[in-house]
């Protein structure tokens, strides 16, 4: 029979998910199955997306859920519709917070990515010979998104472990997850602490860190006094590296949508068509990319 596979993502507008879909499509072409791409921004939409897949005769689906706590509901819905289930990026958890281990998962640990960000900042601080006492850290936060908290906290934990004074970390809560909101929030932090001349910035993604970098420019902090490290590595970050002069956007942790999109789709196909069950857990790593090596890193990760 024809194989039909669903690929549900939580934020279809995000380039990351566009890429995942794009690479899943590559697998679909290779193997000749149909890929149904559905965006589902909240729990309710996830439920109807699964019903919808069931109704159109899909045999399985891959999902990046808007919230990991939706786990039991998704598992139940998938079973009710007789669909095979795999997760990508974010791993489902039970009511008590433990991961649902039965569901094959390919993902990245939010905390791990955060730690990579923190490590590269710490390295750069040392390289520039800054005294951590004189440096401020902008924590561009969006705390209602659990992944965001995990990433940012991951980064800050590395900073703190390296001796970064806790008192120098300042919260800049974004009202929304776009650059303008981050810019406005970070501006306040900079103005409030006008005495601090050297800054680092972390946030949930490239857009958030970019906001902090723009804020530093608007209050006249020179590019070499700012170390912003983002997460994602999509175009907004690459654009920074392409600018003629370096900006305070120092680097970004690129995570590869290729494996996530291509491999999960392929595995699901194998599972459906040939009964070959996928690995229960595959973790991929992020890789830090800087102005001078981003092209190489992207090639290594199979993007471009």
């Amino acid at each position, binding site marked *: 029979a024809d194989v039909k596979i669903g690929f549900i993502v939580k934020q279809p507008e995000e380039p990351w998910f566009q890429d995942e879909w794009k690479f899943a499509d590559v697998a679909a072409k290779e193997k000749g199955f149909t890929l149904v*791409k559905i965006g589902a921004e909240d729990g309710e939409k996830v*439920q109807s997306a699964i019903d*919808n897949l069931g109704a159109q005769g899909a045999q399985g689906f891959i999902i990046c859920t808007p919230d990991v706590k*939706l786990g*039991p509901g998704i598992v*139940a819905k998938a079973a009710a519709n007789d669909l095979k289930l795999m997760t990508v990026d974010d791993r489902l958890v039970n*009511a008590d917070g433990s991961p649902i281990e039965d569901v094959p998962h390919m993902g990245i640990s939010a905390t791990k990515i955060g730690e990579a960000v923190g490590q590269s900042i710490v390295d750069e601080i040392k390289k520039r010979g800054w005294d951590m006492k004189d440096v401020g850290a902008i924590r561009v936060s969006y705390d*209602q*998104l659990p992944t965001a908290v995990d990433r940012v906290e991951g980064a800050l934990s590395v900073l703190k472990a390296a001796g970064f004074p806790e008192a120098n970390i300042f919260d800049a809560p974004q009202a929304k997850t776009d650059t303008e909101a981050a810019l406005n929030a970070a501006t306040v932090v900079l103005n409030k602490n006008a005495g601090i001349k050297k800054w680092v910035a972390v946030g949930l993604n490239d857009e958030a860190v970019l906001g902090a970098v723009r804020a530093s420019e608007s209050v006249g902090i020179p590019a070499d006094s700012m170390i912003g490290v983002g997460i994602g590595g999509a175009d907004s970050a690459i654009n920074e590296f392409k600018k003629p002069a370096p900006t305070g956007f120092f680097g970004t942790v690129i995570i590869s949508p290729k494996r996530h999109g291509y491999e999960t789709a392929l595995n699901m196909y194998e599972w459906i068509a040939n009964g070959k069950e996928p690995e229960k857990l595959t973790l991929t790593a992020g890789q830090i990319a800087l102005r001078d090596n981003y092209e190489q890193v992207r090639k290594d990760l199979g993007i471009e």
Partner: protein
Amino acid sequence: MKKLLLGEQGLVVIFAVAFAVVALTVPNFLTERNMLGLLQSVVTIGIVACTMMFCLASRDFDLSVGSTVAFSGMIAVMASNASGSIVVGLVAALLCGGAVGFVNGLVIARFRINALITTLATMQIVRGFALIASDGRAVGINDPGFYQLALSKFLGIPTPIWVMAIFFIVFGFVLNRTVFGKNTLAIGGNPEASRLAGVDVSSMRIWIFALQGLVCAVAGVLLASRITSGQPNAATGLELSVISACVLGGVSLAGGRAAMTGVIVGVLIMGIAENVMNLLNIQAFYQYVVRGLILLLAVLLDNLRSAAAGRRG
């Protein structure tokens, strides 16, 4: 034929025709599974639209419904986890939802503050409460019995769909056959005349908002049960979907005009649009455009119809 199209029930007829076309052309649409999935996908919008209809008909506006749905869903889960009793959870959710609505009504009716601003404010405050209560994270349900609210079936049809159907019937009746309904329409049609006729406009408004809060709580509980957790971020943007469904269904934002059949059709149009776009595998970005065009087309058709029927805009 012409009479059918142009009559009071014209929207329903247009809808029926559109439905038939979709059923014939879109594969997998008219299957029992898909129909049930579709109906389940509009449960939240459908339930909340019942009272939003009253709100709009009385010339008011409620932007806080999404937050209230999320908040009361959270409360249901947290209270039943804490007490070990699902009933306690339900009661707590209804109380909280009702309280939010009551406060909205009180502020709007007694302090005469613009409904848009008031509910925009409570929308944020209540969302804040939901986030604070849960520390921004979804809360899982301990007692699997809670899931049964959404999973159980009667005559093969899931309970939430029954609940929605009952709400449609009850609120349709309330609108057309009760003093409450007529007073609502009167307030929206001419608040001054209603006041001068002795209708207690301000307590009517408080009641309508309180009812809206209660109904949001019901929707919130069903949603939490369906998604098996209380989520502080659930139902964002619900307000606009619900208001669109109502307006699509012919409820006038200028007040005074509302009909349950229209609202049901509005709710279904929204649900079918989403459903069909996914069945046809329309790309995410194009879905935005299509969604917008469907909205436009639906009101345009309805307008042409009523213009032809010689009614006043």
